[in-house]
């Protein structure tokens, strides 16, 4: 069993009256692609800032490579590649200057890999960063983040607001990193399709609380969507063991449940229900079930 790359226990962070993170505990296994899901304001970026050591743990403990990122930033940050939603790049530099500047901090910088990615991303080395488009900035940020082949690639909503082509480029790069070298990727997103496509582990944050954490396959296997029809209209929701969310009215109801027991057993209480449809719940449905509110249209894609 590998030691977790990131180990967080009972992490709590409050901003005034608002609790941004509430007793969060999670472990990120080495070599995994770990997706962090949550609605806007769920605490994803706050959690990532704790991992980077940009926030001190108010209570609880954060360890990255078994080190405290606040006490030993040099050792921790030297092994991390980080890309944020809006990469904070120095606008006054040129692309090649920025890469040279970043290279100086990482002894394991792979110049050939950088050149290969730069050409793949079609980035002009002489262009000033301030004239790059949003997509080009994201690509440059990603390039700089993984050019030193970090042990941990930390991506905070890397493809939010980007067009599908750029998003695909970024995802391809992420997948390649992992499949090629078995390194760890921790990335946050509210684009569930993206998470589902590349992650093998996921964690779900809802209003600062970790509501779900585990291997993606396990999560999907343990959540089912059951559509029920009753003989007579009913005013109250059907009772199914392991129910996470129930929607519907009258005779037709849909239940998302987290249960490993067989369906018939699970709805044993409501013997008059007919199972119209039953299947594995999608990540989107699981997310809505836990977050308790529908996702915006753009995130459903």
């Amino acid at each position, binding site marked *: 069993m590998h030691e977790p790359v990131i180990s967080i226990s009972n992490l709590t962070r409050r901003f005034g009256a608002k609790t941004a993170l509430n007793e969060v505990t999670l472990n990120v296994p080495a070599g995994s692609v770990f997706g962090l899901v949550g609605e806007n304001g769920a605490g994803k970026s706050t959690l990532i800032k704790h991992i980077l050591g*940009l926030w001190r743990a108010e209570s609880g403990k954060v360890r990255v490579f078994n080190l405290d990122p606040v006490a030993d*930033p040099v050792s921790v940050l030297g092994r991390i590649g980080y890309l944020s939603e809006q990469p904070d790049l120095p606008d006054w530099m040129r692309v090649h200057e920025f890469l*040279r500047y970043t290279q100086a901090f990482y002894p394991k910088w792979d110049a050939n890999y950088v050149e290969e990615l730069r050409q793949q991303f079609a980035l002009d080395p002489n262009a000033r960063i301030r004239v790059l488009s949003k997509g080009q900035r994201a690509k440059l940020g990603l390039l700089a983040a993984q050019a030193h082949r970090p042990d941990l690639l930390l991506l905070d909503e890397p493809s939010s607001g980007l067009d599908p082509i750029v998003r695909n480029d970024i995802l391809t790069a992420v997948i390649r990193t992992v499949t090629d070298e078995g390194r760890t990727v921790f990335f946050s997103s509210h684009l569930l399709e993206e998470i589902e496509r590349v992650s093998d582990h996921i964690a779900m944050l809802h209003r600062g609380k970790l509501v779900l954490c585990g291997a993606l396959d396990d999560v999907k296997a343990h959540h089912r969507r059951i559509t029920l029809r009753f003989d007579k209209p009913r005013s109250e929701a059907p009772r199914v063991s392991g129910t996470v969310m129930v929607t519907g009215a009258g005779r037709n109801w849909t239940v998302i449940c987290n249960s490993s027991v067989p369906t018939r057993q699970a709805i044993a209480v409501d013997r008059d229900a007919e199972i119209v449809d039953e299947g594995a719940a999608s990540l989107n449905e699981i997310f809505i079930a836990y977050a308790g509110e529908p996702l915006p249209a753009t995130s459903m894609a």
Partner: protein
Amino acid sequence: MRSLTYAMVWDVWNRSRYATFLLLGITVLGLIVHFVAPESMRPDGVNARTGQFVLHWVYWHLMMISFFLVFAIFGYTEFNPAKSSTGFPHRLFTLPVTSLRLVAVPILLGIVAIEFIFWTWTGVIIRWKPTPVTGAVLFGTFMVVYQAVLWTLGRLGALRLIVLALIGVAFFSADIFLTFPNSRLTESSVIFGSITVAILTFFLSWVCISRQRAAGIGWPAFATNDRLIAAAALLAPYLTYHLWTHGFSRPILLGFAQLVVLALCGVALLRTVHDLVSDRSSGRRKGFRSSLHAQFWFEWRRSGLALPLLVAGLVCTVFAPLSWIEQAEPGATFRILLWTIATPLILSLPVGKAFSKPDFWSGELSLPSVVAVKPLSNTQIVSSKMKVAAVSAALTWLIVIMFVAVWFALWANAQTATLVRLALRPQYATAILAAISVVILTWRFLVGSLWLGLSGHRISFSVSVLLYPLLLVVGTITVDWIFRRDQSRWAAFQQGFDAALPTLVWIAMIAATAKVWFAVKTSRHIDRYFLPWFCGAGCFAMTALALSSLVNVVPSQPWRLRIVLVCLGLFAMPIARISLATSSLSRNRHRV
């Protein structure tokens, strides 16, 4: 809205209508006072002297407030969150109007407003004699320069105020120099120069706003029209010759046409130079030896050249021309020398405040994430800032020394130059010590606020910024009160200082001991800094001792004074605050 121009005028009016009402109110008040005041109190009345004496204070203050209000109204800028800077209202870039109109409307409105207020006060209310035509032209030009600086130097942030203050002083000085009996400046040359500056600045604003509108790419149409530029380039040598030999052409419209053609040629030249520089300078091509070198380069590019460039700019635009114009005056030469030497020290105070922030050009006090996530310790980040400050201070003084050396060798007043040489000859060691001390002092002013700036604590940083003008005002008033108005006060001050000296010695020694103790306690952060600190403090102490023997201020207890000076030397070199800077940065970088 009837037209886009009208809409833009309305926009200017709407965003500062209260200030405009206040301005009009003050001006109307001035007019009412002027017309209602009894005949005897009017400046142009029978008892003109009495009238001036009574009304002078009221008029002067109301007029100054009016001028400030006009400039406040036409500080036509807005914050651009995308660039984290304040500049030309970005939202107007999407309007279907040309860049020329975008620039021309606020500038022309500003000129009309300042001229209206200026003539109302000086022509109608105060009735200055002779008519201050030069002042009116200078005010109009300053309005153009003022708006151009605010729009085009957004990245300078609050430093724009220093730039504007320096330009304002230059304009004011030009008007003052006209009153000197032997001045080489004439009214027509100042008016001509001022209008030239205004037109060139207008064109420059136009170019810059056009480029801002196109995200830094491209030039306005007139600057890329090859035929226009070729014609301007052909005419330019003749026009320059004509202006040099015959002055500003009459009728006045012909003169303006001359200036416009020259401005076109200037913009074309600017474009050519820009294209050449952009093509040639492709940035740093070499790799870095280490992460510390990379961070040093980063800090240097962000902030290292600010002080040297400001000082070099002042030397080129103010001190060098002044020293040339006033080379016949020994007293003026000496004063210019003193100001040249004082400038780096004075400028290092405000520049040091900007320098102490995590990013020199940003109003944001949190550490930029591009630096925060780099595998650098807090000590290394602070250390790279301190090294940049040291090189910056050294380069600044190199510029000053080179200028003074060339000036004194070639065109300085011979009498003053001889006096300075005679004064320095027996004191070379002291002069060298003093020179090293001023470099260290400049460095100290640059890094002295790091512990506040890097803390990310906005209130304490803002208070520390406000403290400088406050101390300046209080200090000026105190010095004026003690030394200038009454000679007996100076004697009393000397006696009091003499009596307090034994106590001062104890206070200084205790404080110095406390400082060293604190340094030892916090040596974890600053162990590498001990040697520079020791050398710097030693240099200060030796300079203080050397100077104390030259200036015999307290004859009765010179040895006590020396102890105080040595302790002050220890104090002048920061140590505790350097240690605090690392802790402050740690709190800022790893927020609680």
